[in-house]
């Protein structure tokens, strides 16, 4: 009966949208580095830690007023406690474990094993509680028991708590972990040297009344100070045998010191690309809108150059040399295969929300088709434009889900025809395309604001602004009306296609939006 009640409650909680939203929000706030509000939470916590540490440090030798002490002892600790409990809550899902166990038992025809699921819950929660970060979090709450003066040592843990919010500490830790074996070897070597030299110096010096080494602790202290190449000079050997030991420790110290330095440098160098990559992926995840160019060839270079004037552009290229070239050209380029689903997963790109269009510009139809098919396998809506290298592959690319194809050779033929037939007209259009002499062709979208002031084409006064109105594109009818009559009614969503000096068009557009 109680078991059923528990399962019912677990289902009820698990299916509650509100509960899921609240838990998801706290998970994002505490654990998800890509959540936009997390950085504000982190800054708040860091400020709290600093203020708490300052109060605790000041309290050591000076008087701190009661309000500040109350703030530090109760308010800060209480906030830390809340944070600890929230982290404990989001670390794993109790309801999921109960439901999964119940479903598993039902499938197998067994009775619901409550104890087993409780055991799993306990193991998971305990695993979290015993993790280094959680221990530091817990110890950082300890000054709550301010009256127990001994516990003031735990101020240290508040400082340690900072690590949780500083990303560079994570990077440093991961670098050290990557060279774990080398560091352990170094530590063993250093420990042996310290042990042997401490024992030796103690044996050589302890019986000499002139020697400052009187205890084994002093011998160990001297060894560590010497091997680390710090050498305070407060303890120095006086016997000849002791000095021989010192020479040995000094030489060993140089070896340990240089080995440590080279280890850290190597580890960082090896991890540098990975660190940069991670940083870049994080940055890309924050971009609101961008064009994704797949493949970096001559056309991609030109397209990226032009698009990046008004937009953000990201290039995906599987060959590292081309990626380097793209980066050298000043673009954001990533060494990922655009034809692999794994790449998009790793990059955490939200195609629907972030990508304006995917442009497949590889010099191989096979690669472009593969990229288009990969994207279509997990997203049906994103706009894909691809170049076509061989006419024979047109239908294959369309079948793969490309929205628009561009066949460069056909274009060359058409251009040649225009050039031969009407060179002057060709020049004019070419000049318009290239924004030659500042003359441009632009689209102005008719919105509610424009419509408030202008109802018909005749009211637009484009001639006053020395702008040519080539026509109107009616989006709802999907039709272009060339040279529209003055009585043509304007509608929201219409596009005015205008030609003129860029500055004149700008003033005209401003005028359309301003008048009211």
């Amino acid at each position, binding site marked *: 009966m109680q078991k059923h009640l528990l399962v019912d409650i677990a289902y009820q909680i698990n299916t509650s949208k509100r509960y899921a939203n609240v838990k998801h929000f706290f998970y994002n706030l505490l654990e998800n580095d890509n959540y936009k509000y997390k950085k504000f939470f982190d800054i708040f916590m860091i400020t709290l830690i600093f203020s708490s540490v300052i109060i605790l440090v000041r309290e050591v030798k000076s008087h701190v007023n009661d309000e500040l002490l109350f703030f530090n002892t109760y308010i800060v600790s209480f906030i830390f406690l809340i944070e600890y409990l929230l982290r404990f809550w989001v670390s794993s899902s109790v309801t999921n474990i109960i439901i999964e166990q119940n479903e598993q038992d039902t499938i197998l025809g067994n009775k619901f094993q409550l104890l087993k699921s409780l055991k799993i819950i306990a193991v998971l929660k305990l695993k979290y509680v015993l993790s280094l970060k959680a221990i530091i979090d817990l110890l950082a709450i300890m000054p709550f028991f301010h009256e127990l003066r001994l516990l003031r040592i735990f101020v240290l843990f508040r400082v340690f708590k900072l690590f949780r919010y500083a990303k560079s500490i994570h990077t440093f830790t991961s670098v050290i972990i990557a060279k774990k074996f080398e560091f352990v070897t170094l530590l063993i070597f250093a420990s042996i040297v310290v042990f042997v030299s401490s024992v030796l110096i103690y044996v050589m010096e302890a019986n000499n009344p002139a020697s400052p080494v009187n205890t084994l602790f002093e011998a160990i202290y001297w060894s560590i100070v010497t091997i680390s190449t710090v050498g305070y000079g407060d303890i120095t050997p006086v016997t000849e045998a002791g000095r021989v030991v010192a020479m040995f420790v000094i030489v060993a110290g140089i070896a340990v010191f240089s080995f440590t330095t080279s280890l850290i440098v190597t580890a960082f160098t090896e991890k540098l690309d990975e660190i940069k990559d991670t940083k870049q992926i994080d940055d890309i995840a924050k971009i609101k809108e961008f*064009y994704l160019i797949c493949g970096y060839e*001559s*056309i991609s270079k*030109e*397209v990226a150059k*032009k*698009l990046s004037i*008004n937009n953000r552009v990201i290039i995906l290229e599987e060959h590292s040399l081309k990626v380097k070239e793209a980066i050298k050209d000043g673009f954001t380029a990533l060494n990922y295969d655009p034809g692999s689903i794994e790449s998009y997963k790793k990059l955490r790109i939200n195609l629907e929300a972030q990508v*304006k269009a995917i442009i497949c*510009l590889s010099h191989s139809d096979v690669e472009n088709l593969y990229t288009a098919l990969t994207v279509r396998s997990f997203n049906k809506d994103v706009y894909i*434009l691809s*170049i076509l290298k*061989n*006419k024979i592959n047109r239908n294959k690319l369309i079948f793969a889900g490309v929205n*628009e194809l*561009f066949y*460069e*050779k*056909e*274009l*060359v*033929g*058409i*251009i*040649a*025809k*225009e*050039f*031969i*037939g*009407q060179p*002057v*007209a060709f*020049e*004019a*259009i070419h*000049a*318009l*395309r*290239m924004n030659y*002499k*500042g003359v441009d*062709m*632009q*689209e102005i979208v008719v919105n509610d604001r424009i419509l408030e002031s202008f109802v018909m084409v005749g009211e637009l006064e484009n*001639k006053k602004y*020395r702008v*040519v109105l*080539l026509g109107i*594109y009616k989006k709802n009818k999907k039709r*272009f009306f*060339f*040279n529209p009559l*003055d009585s043509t009614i304007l509608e929201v969503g219409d*596009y005015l*296609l205008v*030609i*003129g*000096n860029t500055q*004149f068009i700008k003033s005209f557009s401003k005028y359309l939006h301003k008048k009211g």
Partner: protein
Amino acid sequence: MPQNTALIFGYNDYTFEIEKNIKSHYEFIHIFQLDAEKEPKDRGEYKIYSFDLSENWDDLSASVNIDTCVAFCLLEDMAENIFLTISLRETFKMLTIVALSKDKESTDKLMLAGATRILPTTQTTANIIVDMLEKPIITEVLHGILYEKSDLKIVQIKIDNDEFFNGKYPADIDWSRAHGIIVLSVFNDDMSSEFIYSSKEKHHIIKSGDVFVVVGYDEDIKNFKKMIGSKVD
């Protein structure tokens, strides 16, 4: 002398597309294949000739009247295409040479080599791709006009009768309301071009010999031509 012969150098996909588009303009089309290219095959109505880069073009001079020719240099290897252009220019000083270029560097070199006109594939492709993404409607309309996919046409009209305009400036005339057409730009007889509204200053009075670039429907363009007494497109 009217140009009635097209000489296409290079046998590749560009050749097919250009031949398809220009065949209505030329009485004769000769296609030349570089020796190094694939096995020559006659293409439909055309015989495929072969040539090599060390030619002195004696055979060509003997077989066609070079003054009536336009040469299309379409070799895909840019170094070879530049070499071909310079070789043709060196032999035929007045020949119109249209050359294919795949990058900015080759464009500059082809100009230096003496090409009359360049077909810059990479830049044009990039421009159009960007326009398709950034100005999709303009691109669609422009392509419709330029590539005759719509009823609208873009034509160049030479002014033979400036009396009709009576000393007016292009920007003074309400072309769209008076004639149903839109004048985009004016090429003056001194070969300088000016977009009709490119500046607020009035530089140029309409006079005979000017060439107007006009967009409009066929009927309106014909009427306009009649009105201004234009004889040549």
